[in-house]
């Protein structure tokens, strides 16, 4: 596999000089456009969740929805333009750096973005029917919401692939900028995943339960490792985790500044400002460990997966066990840490300051953490496999 990677890089170096810097500058805006879409989607999603927790009801045209719609339109339109331009007016170099799709040509990431946009568009009438059939937003995780989520994720993956292909083909002077853009796209995807699992793995009250560690062991190590392997940054996982934490912190600090009142009854918690997401997970700690391990154990994939999986869960446990205890103290109930902020219809009680669903025995705890560790090892190995594939993406 490493031979193939080296061969691909060599080909890239041969092909790169043919692309003039002027032409590269001409084409860079679609990448920024899809990155804008990618970050808008996750911001819109977190804003929308905050909207439902604070105001309660919405419409198709609520501001978070509009942001997500704009994101889909920007991604679809910019990638559609890119495909048409490449197909009908592209230079030989541009056409050479594209893939075929039903007679058209375009970058791989652009096709994924277009596909994601169509998924998002398709989800709208499906979701509308679902609401008419089964009720308004009874559950977050429903079939039409999953269609929407996969559309969103596809746009984010598409943005990542566009950044990745450019990074993999880039000359040395563009390398750091494109590597950072790739890490940015990976951080956005990480934020998206952390938001999807928020119901089970975000509130400090969950952090003494093995469910928290079992849930976080599924996708987080996979994304961190898969996006670190093709990265040209020195600390790729750490950078990705830092971008995730930065996005979450900015949203957490910003949302709670805006006045808002519930618009649905019954109101058990009369909030006066937008309810922010909880403090982000301290992913920078396991990400740092992953970066160190990936350097030490490069080329030994199975050993690396074992070490990375076990280390991920161990560091998560060590960090969040104590961090959660702090977040449940009065010292965390402020703007900086954003703790103890609940939905408008939450019946406030002492449950706010307790750990929920914590295991009752050491045996149950050990079994749960063992499952989490095993899961993390498997997903780490899958992450390495995906990452190796991503390292080869050229178009």
């Amino acid at each position, binding site marked *: 596999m490493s031979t193939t990677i080296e061969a691909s890089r060599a080909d890239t170096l*041969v*092909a790169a000089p043919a692309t003039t810097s002027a032409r590269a500058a001409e084409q860079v805006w679609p990448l920024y456009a899809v990155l804008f879409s990618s970050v808008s989607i996750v911001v819109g999603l977190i804003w929308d969740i905050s909207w439902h927790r604070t105001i309660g009801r919405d419409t198709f045209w609520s501001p978070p929805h509009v942001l997500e719609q704009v994101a889909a339109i920007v991604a679809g339109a910019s990638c559609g333009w890119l495909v048409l331009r490449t197909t009908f007016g592209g230079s030989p170099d541009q056409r050479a*750096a594209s893939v075929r799709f039903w007679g058209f040509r375009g970058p*791989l990431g652009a096709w994924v973005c277009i596909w994601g946009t169509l998924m998002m568009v398709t989800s709208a009438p499906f979701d509308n029917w679902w609401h008419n*059939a089964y009720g*308004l937003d009874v559950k977050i995780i429903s079939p039409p919401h999953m269609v929407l989520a996969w559309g969103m994720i596809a746009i984010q993956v598409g943005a990542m692939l566009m950044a990745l*292909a450019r990074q993999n083909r880039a000359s040395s002077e563009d390398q750091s900028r494109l590597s950072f853009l790739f890490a940015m796209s990976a951080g956005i995807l990480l934020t998206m995943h952390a938001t999807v699992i928020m119901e089970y793995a975000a509130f400090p009250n969950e952090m003494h339960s093995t469910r928290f560690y079992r849930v976080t062991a599924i996708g987080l190590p996979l994304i961190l490792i898969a996006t670190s392997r093709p990265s040209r940054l020195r600390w790729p996982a750490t950078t990705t985790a830092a971008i995730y934490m930065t996005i979450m912190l900015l949203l957490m600090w910003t949302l709670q500044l805006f006045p808002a009142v519930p618009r649905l009854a019954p109101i058990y918690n009369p909030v006066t400002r937008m309810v922010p997401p909880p403090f982000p997970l301290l992913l920078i700690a396991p990400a740092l460990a992953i970066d160190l391990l990936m350097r030490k154990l490069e080329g030994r994939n199975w050993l690396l997966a074992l070490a990375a999986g076990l280390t991920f869960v161990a560091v998560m446990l060590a960090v969040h066990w104590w961090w959660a205890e702090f977040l449940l103290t009065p010292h965390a109930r402020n703007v900086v840490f954003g703790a103890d902020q609940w939905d408008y219809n939450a019946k406030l009680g002492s449950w706010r300051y307790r750990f929920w669903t914590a295991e009752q025995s050491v045996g149950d705890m050990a079994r749960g953490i063992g499952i989490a560790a095993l899961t993390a090892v498997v997903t780490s190995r899958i992450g390495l496999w995906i990452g190796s594939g991503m390292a080869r993406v050229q178009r």
Partner: protein
Amino acid sequence: MRSLHRAALVAAIALVSSAHIGSPDVWFDGLAGPYKVLVHVEAPPVVPGIAVINIRIGEAGVSRVTAFVNHFDATGGAPPPDVASPIPGSTSWYRTRLWVMSAGSNSVTVSVSGARGEGTVVVPLVALPGRRLQFNGALAGVLSIAALVLALGLFTIVGATVREGVLPPGVEPDAQRRRRARFAMARAVVILAIVIVGGGAWWRAEDADFTRGLFRPLAVRVAVDTTAAQRRFQLAITDSVWVHRNDVAWLRARRATSATPLMEDHGKLVHLFLIATDGRSAFAHLHPSTADTVTFTSVLPDLPAGTYRVFADIVHQSGLTETLTSTVTLAGERHSATRDTTTDADDTWAIGQKGDSMRSVLADGTVLTWNRNPTPLVAGEEAGLRFAATPPAGDTASLEPFLGMAGHVVVVRDDGKVFIHLHPLGTISLAAQTRLTGNAPGVMVHAMNTALDPADSLYFPYAFPQPGKYTVWVQVKRHGRVLTGSFPAFVRPSSASDSTR
């Protein structure tokens, strides 16, 4: 997050009943302080869902109309009310759309501000999931095509990724790479098939969960006891949810909500209607009594032999109204007409109704006239149930209140799929309104003050919910005697009507 779980749970356990049979919308005609209002609430077909609140103000000078919804047992606060906007083209109608989040008994609080100050009225709303929507038609076709395009697109992307995505620019894929691409696409087909099968199973599970939570009336058993000197009609609520309503362990095991006890409406725990299935040949409005909270009995009047539809209106202390339904076949034997001392004094019945769609002659010679518009009745449109009672020549006695109301109307479709018991204040239960308002005296004053001049029209706000053949039964009281008239009505479908209701 937790609230969404709770909302899901509430929807899943769906309470035990529905307000009326096939007629979920609410009509209320009354006063909001100094203002005469007509409120029409288009009930949400699912919960959580959107209720459309239409408010007609009977005078000018109104500056602001607002409304909000709350659940009957909400100990929390209410949201700021929504401002109802004037309906374009109308000078008196206002409209707003409100989210109803909790199944069961809810209240719609309407406030009117204007030159005569501010007035508020509470209108009960029973919101329960009552129908299952089919996924078919044009939407299913369009989404199926979209799904097909997306699936083909996904396979193409997977193939393009393996075939060309990892090749340096300008390098053409060789035969081996093309084979690998086809193999990857085949794997994608298998994976997508698994996803679709899993998604379908998930959807079916969600649908089954929803269907289990749909309204089902409390199960009842009816019987006629012929062993006594007079036949007695027996109605027993046998539904396990009702029988176990105080059994916390039983309810918890089934994730069911306890039904609140019954309360009297117009002074009666149960308003029982027996209506002959052959049309207008017989009608009885009885008020069974009970020695317990499961079985209700009433002396059976001398009704002709035949099969009867049974409708029993009850009101829970939550303000939730429901109609229990069954059928009963009566044998031909007739008994003494002597009134049993245990019979409710307000029981009444009518046999062999005569009249047409405009005019019904009552037992004392009073002529009841339906002041109908010449236009056909249309489902979903205000029906204009206005009646005038013309006494026999020389009789100048006024109408008297019957059970606290100037008149009672029962609307029943010939197939029994629509049934409702109306009063001049609309479809709502006065007891439920009193419970939800917490201001019984004011409401009762309004009810008793309804004009009782027989020359005046009796108005019952209502819209036939579905097309079909109906009978409209009207009951008024004169000289201490309850008089019953009936009118056949044919209701045409509306292009805008919702046939699923």
